């Protein structure tokens, strides 16, 4: 476990950034300022932050429809992220992508695909490129429990396993794919068990414990960097809200929701940091106000930014 104070505080700050960011997105959506739909990451912060804290800036990630947290954890600019979600010209993708398709190639964020499971082979391909180019990068691929029933999951992991590609396959198991409970669509309890079918390590970890996720990710990164191939990491977690903004999530038992809210990854980490004497109540408050200021600045920037000109729709089709 890392005891580097600076790193721990940075991880905590990132988690808070994601939570506050998502709360703002939720609020703005309610005010009709966010076009389309949104899939919030609130409740799952420990996964993205735990994994991305084990990566360097040069490493890659591949993201999903529930991707705001992945971006922020990898170090994306809050302003450009928020502007993209609002469909503004100043957003990461000039308004072409929106909430489900954010990318920042400068920080190795290879983009979010909204086609469930489509990121898995793409991550394997990035891993292949790393191997062929002979760098020591790795690629972390985020996807859900639902995605692990897609053919691309099996094909993509098998390829990465066979070719010993430097990839972390990170399954964010939040127990549901829309309204479908995991147990309705697979007989195993742990998605990580599937790793054995491809001859690679599979680890199930408490996805609401950021340090536990970090440790597992660090180990997997080590393996990957020395050419030992991919790892399948399953993080058990829970989304605080419905699947998308309009989903009241009535298919989830109240007791289950309450149980998981008690395991809030941010509250848990803060308690841990207090106990470890890494953080005081005072410092925690300071971080909160700092993050609030940053999020508010992102919102202001996004709201004040112009929409793209209609004709820009015709640009970027070909290189």
């Amino acid at each position, binding site marked *: 476990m890392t005891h580097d104070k600076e790193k721990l505080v940075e991880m905590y700050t990132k988690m808070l950034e994601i939570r506050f960011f998502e709360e703002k997105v939720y609020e703005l959506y309610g005010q009709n300022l966010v*076009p*389309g*739909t949104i899939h919030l990451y609130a409740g799952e912060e420990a996964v993205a932050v735990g994994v991305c804290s084990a990566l360097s800036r040069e490493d890659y990630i591949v993201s999903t429809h529930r991707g705001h947290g992945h971006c922020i954890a990898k170090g994306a600019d809050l302003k450009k992220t928020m502007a993209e979600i609002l*469909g*503004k010209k100043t957003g990461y*993708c000039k*308004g*072409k*992508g*929106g909430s*489900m*398709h954010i990318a920042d190639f400068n920080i190795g964020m290879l983009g979010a*695909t*909204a*086609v*469930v*499971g489509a990121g898995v082979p793409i991550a394997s391909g990035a891993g292949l490129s790393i191997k062929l180019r002979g760098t020591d990068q790795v690629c972390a691929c985020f996807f859900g429990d*639902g*995605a692990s*029933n*897609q*053919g691309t999951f099996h094909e993509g992991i098998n390829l990465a396993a066979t070719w010993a590609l430097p990839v972390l396959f990170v399954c964010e198991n939040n127990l549901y*794919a*829309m*309204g*479908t*409970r995991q147990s*309705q*669509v*697979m007989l195993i309890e742990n998605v990580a068990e599937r790793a054995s079918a491809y001859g690679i390590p599979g680890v199930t970890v408490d996805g609401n414990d950021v340090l536990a996720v970090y440790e597992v990710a660090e180990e997997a990164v080590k393996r990957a960097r020395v050419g030992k191939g991919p790892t399948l990491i399953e993080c058990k977690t829970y989304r605080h809200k419905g699947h998308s903004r309009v989903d009241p999530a009535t*298919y989830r038992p109240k007791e289950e929701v309450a149980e998981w809210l008690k395991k809030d990854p941010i509250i848990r980490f803060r308690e841990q940091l207090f106990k470890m004497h890494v953080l005081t109540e005072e410092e925690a408050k300071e971080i909160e106000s700092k993050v609030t200021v940053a999020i508010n600045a992102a919102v202001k920037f996004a709201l004040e930014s112009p*929409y*793209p*000109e*209609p*004709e*820009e*729709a*015709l640009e970027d*089709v070909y290189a």
Partner: protein
Amino acid sequence: MKEIAYRDALREALREEMRRDQTVFLLGEDIGRFWGGAFKVTNGLAEEFGDERVRDTPISESTIIGAAVGAAITGMRPVAEIMFGDLTALAMDQIANQAAKIRYMFGGQAKAPMVIRTPFGGGVNIASHHSQSLEAWFMHVPGLYVAVPSTPYDAKGLLKTAIRGDNPVFFCEHKLLYPLKGMIPEEEYTLPFGKADVKREGKDVTVFATMFMVHQALTAAERLSRENISVEVIDPRTLVPLDKAALLASVKKTGRIVIVSEDCKTAGVSAEIAAIVAEEAIDYLDAPIKRVAEPDTPIPFSPPLEKFVIPDENRIIKAVKEIV
């Protein structure tokens, strides 16, 4: 007659056919009791027919269609839902190489009586992976029928025919049409494939349109009528088989045609229709064929961008005015 929304009309068709024929069953992602379909078309059906006949599947589009093929060639009548039309890409082999060809390739021994329902179309700002109109992909595959209903009446009648038929039917729906209301008979009815519907009669120009674009065309026609331009709006209702006779008759009457389609212009629906008109009615044309379509881009997210690429009544009016 009674008033009903497009999505409810589709559900009536499913319910009636499931009651009538025990071999009809539904499969798809989140179509069952917990969600009722992403667009609520199957809402309540699991409660009535049970989870055996309204099956929630894993997120496995290729296998949803593959399983439908397997069930169809062995005596069942599956109706598969793919949550978004864009995602049919994942199932393309099962649709285009398996379902569509299984009869021909095996010398007519097999039949695959199955329906693939899926929503196409933009207008709700959900970007490039959830907004396309891909009807033309399926028109290009012999062995598939392609239905494109624009009203609750057409949706119900065509879906019943699709379920009863012995061929695989690619049944296109449209996200913006689900809440649209229209009149349907109280009593049971079906609609034949390959029979176009003249949605508005006119004499100066034919506007050929499908699904949501039919409504844009009708609005355009209404506005143009105030300028004394008489527009005939023709809705093919199925693209395969296509009611060529009705299309050509209308063109021969008006001598002008604007083809409106929400899909990309290149090699799209409008290209095929234009080719037919050029091949078979060019001598009757008094002006060049006009096409109003998506300008060969993916569908962008931001509202002003999306609005720019998706055809609307203004672009239809402009095209009509260029040739009358």
